[in-house]
């Protein structure tokens, strides 16, 4: 969770970061992240995606729990084979706002670290420099919770 500024008001925004170390070269890890079939295998769903930035994709989760047994739609923002960085926006079909996911690879002595950062819409707007909406009379916390 991070907190950002909207004008002079403070708003609660948040992001989640996770990583995993793989005992393989970056090329191999990159393939597991960008090949739709292998991506689907570890995301736990069926990925329909053209590996082209700007294209839309759809993931159907096979998940057992109610929350994941749904689909996500989104679009691929960035697919940088040189930097080995991938970012996309996704949402459940009935969600109004998408969250942004960035996946990046880092070569280490023993292999490759895959790092995932998912940011909530409010945090995302702040990150890419779009001014946050001005809090109304409810105050910044209510605003943040409305977006959470």
């Amino acid at each position, binding site marked *: *969770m*991070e*907190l950002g500024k909207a004008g002079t008001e*403070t708003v*609660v925004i*948040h992001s*989640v970061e*996770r*990583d*995993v170390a*793989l*005992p*393989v070269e970056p090329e*191999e890890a990159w393939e*597991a*992240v960008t090949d739709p079939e*292998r991506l689907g*295998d*570890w*995301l*736990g769903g069926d990925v329909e995606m053209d590996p082209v930035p700007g294209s839309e994709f759809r993931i159907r989760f096979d998940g057992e729990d109610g*929350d*994941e047994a749904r689909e996500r739609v989104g679009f691929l923002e960035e697919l940088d084979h040189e930097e080995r960085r991938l970012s996309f926006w996704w949402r459940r079909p009935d969600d109004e706002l998408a*969250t942004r996911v960035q996946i990046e690879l880092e070569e280490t002595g023993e292999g490759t670290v*895959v790092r*995932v950062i*998912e940011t*909530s819409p409010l945090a995302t707007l702040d990150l890419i420099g779009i001014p946050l909406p001005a809090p109304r009379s409810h*105050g*910044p*916390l*209510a605003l*943040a*919770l409305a977006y*959470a």
Partner: protein
Amino acid sequence: MSPDEPVFAALSDATRRRLLTRLADGGPASATQLAAELPISRQAVVKHLDALREARLVTSERSGREVRYTVTPEPLADAVGWIADVGAQWDSRLAALQAQFSRSQTK
């Protein structure tokens, strides 16, 4: 003064936001633990935790010889819930990614 005022005052400080972030993301911790993890003295940590507790953003509970602090479900419930849900989803996905490689690899 609105009833939310102490909350905003508590959130206006960068160190306190950092402590809250740590507690929300990493789970309950003692002041000693927080001081060890962050570049903040234990004395300062205690002072900031007091401010957060007064704003009802954290609660404290004695556990053996130490006092452990936890983020209060309200008013940060939605944010904390989001972090916990999304974090748990990525934990399991990344575990599946790791499994792709341990299947095809002998250690």
